[in-house]
């Protein structure tokens, strides 16, 4: 096998546990050369595990001087090591992009020698792509914790998105499995870049040809299920980072056991907590697009999301006093909180009712999950119920329906990575 193929195998394999894959949200436009990152994201393919392939996601190297227990690239792990040259990464990116395999590059790295040495190479790659290849596609760069401010700032001029992983949701958890790391070394660069982004924004009002600085913003990732944090803790951390560092995304990665030599971590063979991960994404979605607060999503006495039902349904079942909602009069904000109705169908309802009151048969056809929504709404021809329906009964009904339909449907898993 050619050496480059072997490197690609090793360094793609090591990078795949990073779940961020979005290629959207940039403002970079093509100016007569190649590439355009001004569109919303595109998934060019899907792996057999159902995750989106949008970017060439690789490590520059999987050599690392650190020994984080949850990481395949850790120093003490017995794996094959490799490192790309700057030119190899550039060639792969350009040739894959020209064939429409990818939306761009996601570049991360283990740390060889020290943070600045590694960061400096990453910088050379992104600079070469932009200036020599005149490439305008998407670039997501992993910042190396501990790298100097100048290098990070310089890189920010060439990339679309930057991220730096929290890895473990809480400081205590992180200390257990990666004693050399701390959350401060993540917060600091995030804050630094956030600062620069807003500086550039205010400056660009004055300057005509504004330079782009990390136009697609920042993101981070937390490993879920390696350490004992509750969902409430995890979502609070996410909320904090959304509020204080204006992150575009927080990713949740269900821990896949890769090591037997650390008894603090789940053993090899333990199934990754896929349903829990799914619920966290749904909860995150509710925070970002449905105006839910963390304490509305997680029941304060339980601290965990319900694994059987999605968080919006769980919230509705806890609040029988708010239902049923009249589809023909309620506002948008209220309608999107109804289980089984998303933002698109809510918009349709609002538009369509201008032409007359909506009846059940119309709602059924409009793409809402009527079997689920029916317990929470009234429409033009609803039979008036006296008193509340028991929510325990509703829960049982819905669970039964979804069990029956699961037999025929492919396993329900949210397409999270779009």
């Amino acid at each position, binding site marked *: 096998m050619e050496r480059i193929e072997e490197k690609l195998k090793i360094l793609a394999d090591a990078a795949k546990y990073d779940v961020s894959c979005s290629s959207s949200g940039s403002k970079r436009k093509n100016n007569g050369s190649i590439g355009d990152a001004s569109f919303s994201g595109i998934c060019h393919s899907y*792996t057999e595990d159902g995750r989106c392939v949008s970017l060439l996601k690789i490590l520059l190297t999987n050599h690392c001087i650190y020994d984080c227990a949850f990481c395949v690239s850790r120093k003490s792990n017995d794996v094959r090591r490799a490192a790309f040259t700057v030119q190899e990464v550039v060639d792969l990116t350009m040739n894959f992009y020209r064939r429409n395999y990818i939306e761009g590059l996601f570049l991360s790295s283990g740390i060889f020698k020290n943070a600045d040495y590694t960061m400096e190479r990453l910088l050379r790659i992104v600079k070469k792509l932009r200036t020599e290849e005149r490439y305008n596609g998407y670039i997501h760069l992993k910042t190396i914790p501990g790298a100097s401010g100048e290098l990070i700032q310089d890189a920010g001029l060439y990339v679309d998105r930057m991220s730096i992983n929290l890895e473990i949701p809480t400081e205590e958890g992180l200390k257990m499995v990666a004693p050399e790391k701390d959350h401060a070394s993540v917060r600091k660069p995030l804050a630094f870049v956030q600062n620069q982004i807003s500086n550039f924004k205010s400056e660009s009002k004055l300057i005509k040809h504004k330079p782009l600085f990390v136009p697609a913003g920042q993101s981070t990732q937390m490993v879920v299920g390696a350490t004992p944090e509750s969902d409430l803790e995890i979502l609070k951390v996410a909320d904090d980072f959304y509020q204080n560092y204006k992150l575009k995304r927080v990713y949740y990665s269900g821990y896949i056991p890769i090591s037997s030599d650390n008894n603090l971590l789940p053993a090899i063979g333990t199934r990754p907590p896929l349903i829990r991960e799914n619920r966290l994404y749904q909860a995150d979605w509710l925070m970002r697009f449905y105006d839910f607060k963390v304490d509305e999503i997680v029941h304060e006495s339980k601290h965990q999301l319900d694994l059987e039902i999605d968080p919006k349904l769980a919230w509705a079942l806890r609040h029988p006093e708010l239902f049923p909602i009249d589809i023909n009069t309620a506002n948008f904000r209220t309608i999107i909180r109804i289980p089984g109705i998303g933002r698109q169908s809510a918009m349709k309802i609002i538009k369509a*009712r201008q032409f007359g009151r*909506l009846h059940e048969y119309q709602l059924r056809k409009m793409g809402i999950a009527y079997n689920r929504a029916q317990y929470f709404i009234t429409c033009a021809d609803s039979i008036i119920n006296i008193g509340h329906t028991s929510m325990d009964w509703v829960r049982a009904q819905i669970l039964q329906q979804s069990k029956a339909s699961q037999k025929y449907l492919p396993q329900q898993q949210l397409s999270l990575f779009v």
Partner: protein
Amino acid sequence: MIQYIYDGSFGGFLCCVFECFERREFDVQLITEKVFAPDFFALSKTIVSDKAKAKRVLDGLTKSLDASRAKDFFRVFLSEDPIAIQNALGLIIQIFQKKENILENYGEEKALYFSQTLKKVGRERHRMKAFIRFEKSSNGMFFAVIAPDFNVLPLIIDFFTKRYTDQTWLIYDEKRHYGILYDKTGISEIEISELDANAIIPSNEVVVLDLEEQKYQQLWKSYFKSTNIEARKNMKLHLRHVPKRYWRYLTEKK
């Protein structure tokens, strides 16, 4: 009921609308030349495509709705679904007669079908942006062959022109026997007879590939494999995202 027989083009469709109003015939069934089989009992009339008439209808639509909503009729037309096209005719007649935007009346059958068709065409368009795979030939041209369910090639030209400004490319729809060629200055539509088309289809190996083409295809395949996480394998989900009918065009699935 009268049958209008037209050439199957969008312009021809617009001319049918023109004819409806010209002749005050609103109970019309649209049929394309290709599928027309004379029906003894039905009245039929051949509608000749006329650019000026088509343009007047389109301008009228743009005035009654807005430009992007008017373009939705083009998008729905590309579905090639006779029911959707027949419905679209009904909707245009209503829009011109009632002067209101009934397209948003999702509680009504025709409007709902219109928006559902729009969504289907939109999804196919999105897939073609994602699933097109170019192969580089020895003369430096990047070419791709597709066979989308709906005729979405016209809807993705802009996307690829913006993206690949400095390379020559050709996207060929082998189901509908036409393609779009971009030569770094502009685009042109090319029609290729079935015979010649065989020549550009990669499996037939008439096109000489760039020396490095095989290498990058191989690298892409092995990247695709390495990035999969075995512990999370979920083929049902995989198939939902990448239906089998697209596989023969995807480098990583060949």
